[in-house]
């Protein structure tokens, strides 16, 4: 009997170690990726990198100013497309929790979240690039906007649900109408969470490459025109990573480092803000 008991204890220990090992197996890649991105990228990061234009192929130096500005423009366009739909439908879902329509919209937002970004890119190509007969920042921004929608919808709904029901009851008890309660009591209370949710969706869109390849296309030159191809950080990394020049590959790592820092910063902030409640 004691032998069997010991075996059960040993089995318990083995399983504990296996679970611990799987945690390590997930954390090791995370730290290796962060380590490589920092060690490979840090040497190319300097003032020029943020302020200069790319140099012609083969010449050392140069920067990615156009890609930074391009990414900012694309994300701005994406926000214009994605945020109104995301926030308002999030409000709808939190105000009408039980209705069948709300249930199916919630479900659909999840489905939309799972649609590969490259497919969204193809959709943007069909709807905008084909009628316009050229690649453009607009098409890229549209694709990013669609990708932002489900994230914003979900976080808006979650954040509005976190507001204690007593707020709503107090407002309604004072005779304030329902829509004013939602708009002027619940929404401002949840605003901090919603804003971080919006930032989270921007972080997701900032890391997207696939939907931009054949919508915004990329551009070696300075361009801020919305109906022209435009550069972006991620396509910059992709193009440079395929190049035969060591200096360009170093710059690709540097751009990856910049991107990863922005995205991780937003993600960690989001978690800290949402955990407090």
């Amino acid at each position, binding site marked *: 009997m004691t032998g069997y008991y010991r075996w059960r*204890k040993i089995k*318990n220990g083995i*399983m*504990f170690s296996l*679970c*611990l090992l*799987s*945690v390590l197996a*997930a954390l090791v890649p*995370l730290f*290796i*990726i962060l380590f*490589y*991105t920092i060690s*490979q990228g840090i040497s190319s990061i300097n003032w020029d990198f943020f302020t200069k234009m790319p140099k012609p192929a083969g010449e050392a130096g140069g920067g990615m100013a156009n890609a930074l500005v391009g990414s900012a423009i694309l994300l701005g366009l994406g926000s214009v497309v994605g945020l109104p*739909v995301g926030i*308002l439908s999030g*409000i*709808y879902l939190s*105000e*009408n929790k039980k209705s069948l*329509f709300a*249930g*199916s*919209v919630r*479900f*659909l937002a999840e*489905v*939309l*979240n*799972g*649609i*590969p*970004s*490259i*497919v*969204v890119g*193809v*959709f943007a190509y*069909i709807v905008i690039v084909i009628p316009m007969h050229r690649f453009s920042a607009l098409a890229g921004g549209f694709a990013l906007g669609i990708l932002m929608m489900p994230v914003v919808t979900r976080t808006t709904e979650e954040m509005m649900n976190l507001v204690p029901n007593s707020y709503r009851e107090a407002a*309604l*008890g004072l005779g304030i*109408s*329902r*829509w*004013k309660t*939602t708009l002027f009591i619940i929404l401002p209370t949840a605003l901090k969470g919603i804003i971080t949710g919006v930032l989270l969706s921007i972080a997701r869109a*900032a*890391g*997207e*490459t*696939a939907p931009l390849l*054949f919508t915004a*296309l990329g551009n070696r030159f300075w361009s801020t025109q919305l109906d022209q191809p435009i550069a972006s950080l991620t396509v910059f*990394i*992709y193009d440079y*990573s395929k190049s035969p020049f060591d200096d360009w590959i170093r710059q*690709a790592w540097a751009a990856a480092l910049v*991107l*990863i820092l922005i995205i991780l910063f937003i993600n960690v902030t989001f978690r800290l803000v949402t955990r407090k409640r």
Partner: protein
Amino acid sequence: MPNEQNSNQQQGNIDDSVSAADTVLLKSKIGRNLGDFVFNNITRLFAFLLFVLVVLMGYMMYRQSIPAIEKFGWKFIINTDWDPVLENFGALPFIFGTIYSSIIALIIALPLSVGIAVFLTEFTPKWLEGPLSMLVELLAAIPSIVYGLFGMFVMAPWLRQVVEPVLGDHLGFIFLFQGPPYGLGMLAAALILTVMILPIITSISRDVLKSIPNSQREASYALGATKWETIKIILEGGKSGILGATLLGLGRAIGETMAVTMVIGNNPQISASLFEPGYTMASVIANEFTEATSNLYLSSLIEIALLLFILTIVLNSLARLVVWSVTKKYVKGATL
């Protein structure tokens, strides 16, 4: 009118339960309800837009792929040729590459994810659980292109010089590990995908395990079970939820583009060996879309996108339904 008030409150319409005696307020009450009506319908309209978008996506891609559908029909998905010069297009190598790389990734990722989820919910003290799960979820925040960069310049050389020769020498008799070590290939793609789908399977499995009531654990301990024996019971209860998480992970892996494109070797062939390069549906769209010169070529690529769209929608819907049906059982009022 106490009766009317009661029945109104039962319906939860606090707003409407204003006493009917306040006839003076009647006018402003209509005004308020108009506001509610307008506000509710505006938000409903935007929610409806999400609906329209998904339907439109499917329809537009279907319309653009009509030339390819008419030319090749069902043969499109069993034809193994991909020849832009002769305009003979078949998607089988890409479908194979997509499914093969995703399944291999899933086989590696599933036990790891469940292990992590169990560790986080059952073994870890509360103060450590938050930071640990945040670290695991940060893996999901790293952009695909950075995974690709890492896979191309760090992992592929390591596979070529260290892992694949060792596997080939010792396990070369298994069909999985035959052929010359390229580095870039199916194995690299599967490993990168493994890391990328770990966080989603983990976080959903964790939610599922957490939704199982503590009374089950307490009952098990009371019978003298060890921690692991208790966990086995908990896992039994969360089985179908973990299945849902797996399906979601599969959907993610199937749609993954950039990282896979950069490490899979991009060669439309069907080979069981993990060392050989392959090609996936998402990669072929990413690589060849801007090069598609003819109408039929473009149309075939869009048909691949349509197939990908349908595949991920089916997988995601299934997954959500499964996860929902599990959490519904334990969490009161869990929504879809």
